[in-house]
């Protein structure tokens, strides 16, 4: 065993005059179809050629900076391009997230994949269409107005001989600016958009031949495992190298507190990582997850921010006939990706190529170049599929691990985290504490609504990379978790509304955007509270909502859900015992995503077993309106996934941590939903071809937890206001309720 020790100074001095060569093709199986050479390919999103490359065989490559993380984004973008270009979607290959060939369209987050990524491609394709019609007009000697494009051919609209796009363009570039005014195809004429085309990645995912970043290899590549600190912020005091003496061909790399094992054989590295004995100092003290709701309420406040303020909510509530108030808490949660994150880096001198499943490869490239002192032009991040990430999981961290190690050992390095590292060290979705108060007048009108949120502070800048932190490289320490204050106000008629955020100074764990950031907890609170208002008024939960909405799309989403669910109007709770002594009930929740995007209503049937506290979700019905639908089957897959994943988060998931470290680090300590709990899910898609399309990878998550809590309330009369609804918590709540109110 050889041991290599580097100081930070050595590391920063390293680097030379080696110019990286971006081999295009051979090493990138997914990119074989891409004909345009990497060097010199336009990346400027104002250029048509940044997005599209036409090939002599009649195929087209679409380049996009947004990535497909298992969402069906690739087929949807191909359909949008195909529709404008008049070629079959099957002839389009999508290359996503390779910073060497794809334009920067921002990270893949906030449901912007299609609204920005797809829309940019569509506009480039619409521009290309006009150019193709022009070329066809010259070739066919007919006015462009008489021509159309279909089946990959420019041909007379009235019929007759056409000319293929391949013949017109060959391999040439357009060298055209994207025309923001290039006319788009009329949605009423769509023949490709709106079709449930199968996703191109699914067959290879089912045959085991799809190349994930985990499967990517390079000649001379080494495997590595990083030994993360025992406690957050701890420093490495000693390493007992004799503890791994029997393991062949493993090198120890230490840079200050960054410790890793590197070798040719992955198992040797994994085994050594498990066997290595280290001692660490104590870390930065953490508040602990026990009683985190109380800690959050009393934590020092950095600043208060009013994010919604209509009228005077405080005064209105103060003078209302009835006031209702409640507190809700959502814990830290992990992305808990099924495959621990992985990256391969090849650093040669002053240049680096990184293969990563990051949802923001351009952003990662910028951050890696800054942190490791590399010119941004000399860093290329190539996207390869990873295990579903649902936001920024450990993927950016592991890329930094790989870059640091490749730079240090001078060879390509593949790093895959352990399960414990992934669940323990992925940056987390933050804890959220909400107090809601409302005032209702004698007629049941909501005259005032006040939401107070306690959230960990959000500061700008890139998230600190663990590898840089441990190795003593200075970097930014942003604490962004996404737009976590949205949907804190009710979507219903309310005369005076305020949403106020108390940003706590201390941020217990590193934060990140986790699917539908903040909005799942906010809607859980707002829609649970709405249900509490309906129950207090003795009004049916569907009627209560419909009576306070005017937007026809909102009303239709709720109506369609209620209809498919066979919702019978009545007040709640309605405890009734079903077979085997279980309590059965139903609940509904509605929201409009970000108060500006998708309309989603979800109803569900549950059974609660009082003896065990187990909640069984039997059936979920969801009506979903995201405007124009591009691919209904891929969309349904996303909506189903949003629902089942959020049931998992609501029923089971809580990151636990003690005074020094995260203690929920595997599938036993951080359990997620398993098959026996999978409900029947019925999704109703409301297609609106006359409306703009909206992203759909997140929205249906938001009403899930409230619908669940509302159904449990309906079944038992017990209101669950703290997530997760574990068996212990439910059992305890039922027991307390029996004693105090004898509702059951």
């Amino acid at each position, binding site marked *: 065993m050889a041991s290599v020790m580097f100081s930070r100074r050595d590391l920063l001095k390293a680097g030379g005059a080696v110019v990286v060569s971006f081999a295009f093709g051979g090493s990138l199986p997914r990119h074989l179809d891409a004909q345009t050479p990497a060097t010199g390919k336009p990346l400027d999103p104002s250029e048509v050629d940044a997005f599209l490359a036409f090939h002599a065989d009649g195929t087209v490559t679409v380049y996009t900076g947004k990535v497909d*993380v*298992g*969402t069906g984004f690739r087929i949807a973008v191909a359909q949008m391009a195909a529709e404008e270009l008049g070629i079959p979607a099957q002839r389009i290959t999508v290359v996503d997230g390779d910073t060497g060939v794809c334009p920067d369209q921002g990270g893949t987050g906030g449901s912007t994949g299609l609204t920005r990524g797809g829309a940019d491609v569509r506009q480039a394709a619409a521009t290309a269409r006009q150019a193709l019609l022009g070329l066809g007009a010259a070739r066919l000697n007919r006015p462009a107005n008489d021509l159309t494009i279909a089946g990959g051919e420019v041909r007379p609209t009235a019929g007759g001989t056409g000319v293929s796009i391949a013949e017109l363009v060959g391999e040439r570039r357009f060298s055209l600016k994207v025309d923001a005014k290039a006319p788009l195809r009329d949605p009423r004429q769509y023949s490709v958009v709106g079709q449930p085309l*199968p*996703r191109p990645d*699914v*067959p290879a*995912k*089912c*045959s*085991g*031949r*799809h190349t*994930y970043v*985990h*499967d990517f*290899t390079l000649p001379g590549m080494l495997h590595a495992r990083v030994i993360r600190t025992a406690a957050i912020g701890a420093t490495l005091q000693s390493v007992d190298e004799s503890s791994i003496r029997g393991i*062949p061909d493993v090198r120890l790399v230490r840079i200050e507190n960054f410790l890793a094992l590197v070798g040719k*054989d*992955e*198992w*040797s590295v*994994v*085994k050594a990582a498990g066997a290595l004995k280290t001692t660490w100092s104590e870390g930065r003290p953490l508040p602990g997850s026990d009683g985190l709701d109380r800690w959050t309420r009393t934590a020092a406040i950095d600043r208060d921010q009013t994010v919604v303020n209509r009228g005077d909510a405080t005064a209105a509530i103060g003078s209302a006939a009835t006031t209702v108030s409640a507190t809700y808490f959502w814990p830290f949660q992990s992305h808990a*990706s*099924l*495959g*621990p994150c992985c990256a391969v880096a090849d650093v040669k001198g002053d240049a680096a190529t990184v293969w990563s499943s990051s949802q923001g490869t351009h952003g990662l490239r910028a951050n890696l170049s800054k942190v490791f002192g590399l010119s941004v032009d000399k860093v290329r991040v190539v996207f390869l*599929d*990873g*295990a*579903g990430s*649902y936001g920024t999981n450990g993927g950016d961290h592991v890329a930094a691990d790989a870059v640091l190690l490749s730079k240090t050992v001078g060879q390509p390095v593949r790093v*895959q985290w*352990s*399960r414990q590292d992934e669940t323990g060290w992925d940056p987390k979705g933050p804890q959220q504490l909400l107090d809601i108060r409302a005032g209702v007048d004698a007629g049941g009108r909501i005259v005032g609504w006040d939401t107070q949120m306690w959230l960990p502070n959000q500061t700008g800048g890139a998230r600190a990379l663990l590898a840089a932190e441990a190795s003593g490289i200075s970097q930014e320490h942003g604490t962004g978790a996404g737009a976590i204050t949205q949907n804190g106000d009710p979507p219903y008629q309310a005369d005076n509304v305020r949403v106020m955020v108390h940003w706590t100074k201390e941020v217990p764990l590193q934060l990140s955007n986790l699917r539908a950031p903040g909005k799942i907890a906010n809607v859980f609170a707002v829609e649970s509270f709405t249900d509490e208002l309906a129950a207090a008024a003795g009004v049916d939960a569907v009627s209560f909502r419909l009576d306070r909405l005017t937007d026809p799309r909102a009303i239709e989403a709720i109506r369609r859900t209620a209809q498919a669910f066979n919702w019978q109007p009545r007040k709640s709770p309605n405890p009734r015992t079903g077979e085997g002594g279980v309590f059965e009930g139903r609940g509904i929740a509605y929201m409009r995503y970000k108060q500006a995007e998708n309309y989603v209503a979800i109803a569900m049937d549950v059974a609660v077993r009082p003896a065990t506290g187990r909640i069984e979700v039997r059936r979920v019905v969801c009506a979903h309106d995201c405007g124009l639908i591009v691919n209904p*089957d*891929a969309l349904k*897959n*996303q909506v*189903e*996934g*949003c*629902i*089942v*994943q*959020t049931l*998992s988060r609501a029923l089971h998931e809580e990151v636990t941590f003690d005074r020094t470290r995260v203690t929920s680090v*595997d*599938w*036993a300590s951080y359990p*997620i*939903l*398993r*098959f*026996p709990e*999978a*409900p*029947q*899910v019925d999704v109703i898609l409301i297609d609106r071809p006359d409306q703009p399309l909206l992203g759909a990878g997140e929205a249906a998550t938001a009403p899930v937890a409230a619908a669940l809590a509302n159904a449990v309330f309906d079944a038992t009369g017990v209101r669950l206001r703290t997530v997760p609804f574990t068996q212990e918590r439910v059992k305890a709540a039922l027991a307390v309720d029996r004693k105090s109110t004898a509702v059951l």
Partner: protein
Amino acid sequence: MAKYAFRLNGRAVSAESWDPAQPLLYVLRGPFSLHGTKFGCGLGQCGACTVLMDGKAVRSCTTPISRAAGHAITTIEGLTTNDTPHKVQAAFVAEQAAQCGYCTSGMIMTAAAFLSATPSPTIEQAKAGLAGNLCRCGTHTRILRAVVRASKA
């Protein structure tokens, strides 16, 4: 280094390892470059690494190479014969029963073994049969549909 002989996707093979405890997973992904079998946890908790050993579903992350020796191992790559997908693979494609797909190989292997033992399962039986496999994307409803579809193929 000790040598371990076994059958892999119908062929007689052998692998060398310095460690009799080396999990089969690393042998498959390393020397045999069979990347369809995925590392999920290394703890036997998630099922992403499931392969068949003599037709039974096992976790390759907790199956030492020394225990695999002498047995017939089938991976997701070996389920496909002459470019014809296995009925479970075909059903997963037909139902589009994947999102990220990282769990898919293990899910298909578990389902294939399950259907050998239970050819005409009810939904409840299928749920119980897949209880040891995790899917983080929430593709459960489609995966269950695919298993039922395969049982009727």
